[in-house]
């Protein structure tokens, strides 16, 4: 092995440890934040006993979950029952690998260790676990694997509630993956790049994609909520009707793995929203962060990225503690009858608009983005009108009958 290859591998190992360690720490923090914020929404205080502001609560919960008894139902499929939590947890963590969370860092080292030999690296290090050329496609692929974990958990438990939860989640996640994928394609069209580093770079040079892709962002938020099984789309869990759905039969650390996976997915989806539509680690109104990489820039841009991600995590939790759950037919109607046609129609509109703009010779940049933003406005208005009408709440048949009477 050449010293350069060894240096690269060493750096990769460090990034894996720091990246996933940091993510797990963030997951622990978000479990605390969810309970604390829920309390504040309900005029309570939430957990505030363990450590300052209750910040060590996740540690206490972790210890509790480790020493609790692990139960496996007598008629469960043992192998799949044990596999399922891992199959939810691992993809949720893997998703984070391709998200760049700070400006690139210049790294250079050259040293020798007694047995391993010489390690050398010189150049810019992208601050992400793996700079894959397939980028976003990797995210779409791996997030689909997460469905298996939930379906298998429901099936292997051999319990009617778990089974119903698993069944619902497979239907829900398959339906909303379509809308999620299509809303991401709008980003591909405008960025012309599938890597997330490319998407971030593009946004720095022109404008944050929230403006030219406002409609796509709305679609993405709704389908991301459904993909992570959060309220108002938490039908797989549905504690009030399915007694927590697919994790009814799980206990102790296996149960905690499901929750960790869920919160990891929540953080990843928030980070994706920040990266795809809000410029990733880009600091607005300045180009300081784009010039000449250095350590302080990496630190500051990481802070920016964390703040954006935190905002979306806050939004998720806020939505969860505000809105009631959809009924199953409403969920399916929204997915197939509203979001899917809307996404397809929007892609046509966007592609047409970009084609026209290129014909007119408008350069990619601020004006380009603003023109697309104006095109988005009527589409957003139409979506709001559709979602606000009674169709979503009552279904079309009832709506028609109401009109006739």
């Amino acid at each position, binding site marked *: 092995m050449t010293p350069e290859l060894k240096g690269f591998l060493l750096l990769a190992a460090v990034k894996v440890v720091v990246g996933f360690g940091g993510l797990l720490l963030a997951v622990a923090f978000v479990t605390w934040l969810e309970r604390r*914020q829920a*309390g*504040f*929404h*309900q*005029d*309570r*205080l939430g957990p505030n006993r363990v450590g300052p502001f209750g910040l060590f609560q996740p540690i206490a919960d972790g210890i509790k979950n480790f020493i609790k008894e692990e139960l496996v139902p007598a008629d469960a499929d043992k192998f799949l029952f044990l596999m399922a939590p891992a199959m939810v947890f691992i993809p949720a963590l893997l998703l984070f690998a391709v998200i760049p969370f700070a400006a690139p860092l210049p790294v250079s080292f050259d040293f020798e260790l007694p047995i391993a030999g010489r390690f050398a690296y010189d150049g810019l290090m992208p601050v992400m676990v793996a700079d894959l050329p397939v980028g976003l496609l990797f995210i779409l692929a791996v997030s689909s694997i997460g469905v298996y974990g939930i379906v298998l958990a429901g099936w292997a438990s051999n319990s009617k509630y778990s089974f119903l939860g698993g069944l619902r989640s497979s239907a829900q996640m398959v339906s909303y993956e379509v809308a999620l994928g299509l809303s991401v394609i709008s980003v591909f069209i405008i960025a012309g790049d599938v890597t997330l580093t490319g998407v971030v770079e593009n946004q720095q040079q022109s404008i944050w994609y929230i403006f030219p892709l406002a409609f796509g962002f709305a679609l993405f938020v709704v389908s991301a909520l459904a993909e992570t099984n959060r309220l108002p789309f938490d039908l797989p869990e549905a504690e009030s009707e399915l007694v927590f759905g697919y994790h009814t039969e799980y206990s102790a650390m296996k149960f905690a793995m499901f929750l960790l996976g869920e919160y990891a997915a929540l953080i990843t989806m928030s980070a994706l929203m920040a990266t795809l539509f809000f410029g990733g680690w880009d600091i607005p109104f300045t180009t300081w962060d784009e010039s000449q990489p250095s350590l302080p820039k990496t630190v500051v841009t990481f802070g920016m990225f964390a703040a954006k991600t935190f905002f979306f995590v806050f939004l998720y939790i*806020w*939505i969860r*503690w*505000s*809105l009631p759950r959809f009924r199953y037919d409403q969920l399916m109607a929204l997915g197939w009858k509203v979001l899917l046609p809307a996404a397809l129609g929007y892609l046509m509109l966007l592609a047409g608009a970009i084609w026209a703009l290129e014909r007119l010779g408008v350069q990619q940049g601020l004006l380009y983005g603003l023109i697309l933003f104006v095109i988005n406005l009527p589409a957003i208005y139409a979506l*709001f009108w559709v*979602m*606000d*009408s*009674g169709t*979503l*709440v*009552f279904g079309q048949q*009832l709506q028609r*009958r*109401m009109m006739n*009477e």
Partner: protein
Amino acid sequence: MTIAVKVVRRPERSVSYLRASLKGMALTFNHLFRKKVTMQYPEETREDGWSISGRWRGTHRMLTDEQGRAKCVACGLCPQICPANCIKLVPGEDEEGHRYPLIYEIDEFRCVFCGYCQEVCPEEAIHVGVHYENAEFQRERFVYDLERLCAQTHPVSSLWDPADPRGE
């Protein structure tokens, strides 16, 4: 038989989803900054403007006379009426013919806190108390003997009186 569905024609305002959702989210956001109602229990207790009802029925207390002896005359009414059968009473008699309890034990685990013992007591000796902090480290400690019952100092319950239903 078909299920009859009654379709209620609602005004547009109440069938909207997004506007209603946004309104709800604005409300929950406002609640973030409201004053919290949580009472931080071990630090804040009822001295800080919160109290339990005077008719609360908690762990028992035996009243004593001027000489510090239990008022109980071992008549045996309370073990008789107790629906949970948690009172153990062995009566004794001194040389002047006064009856007194040799053993008087209440198993607070068995007790259902109905307050019948207080109601039935002719001497107003045994009472249920306005008290709720009963934690112990050993199970045996929950069988209160006579000495312990007499040593309790918490206020006694004023049971519901049909003649004075509001407790005035």
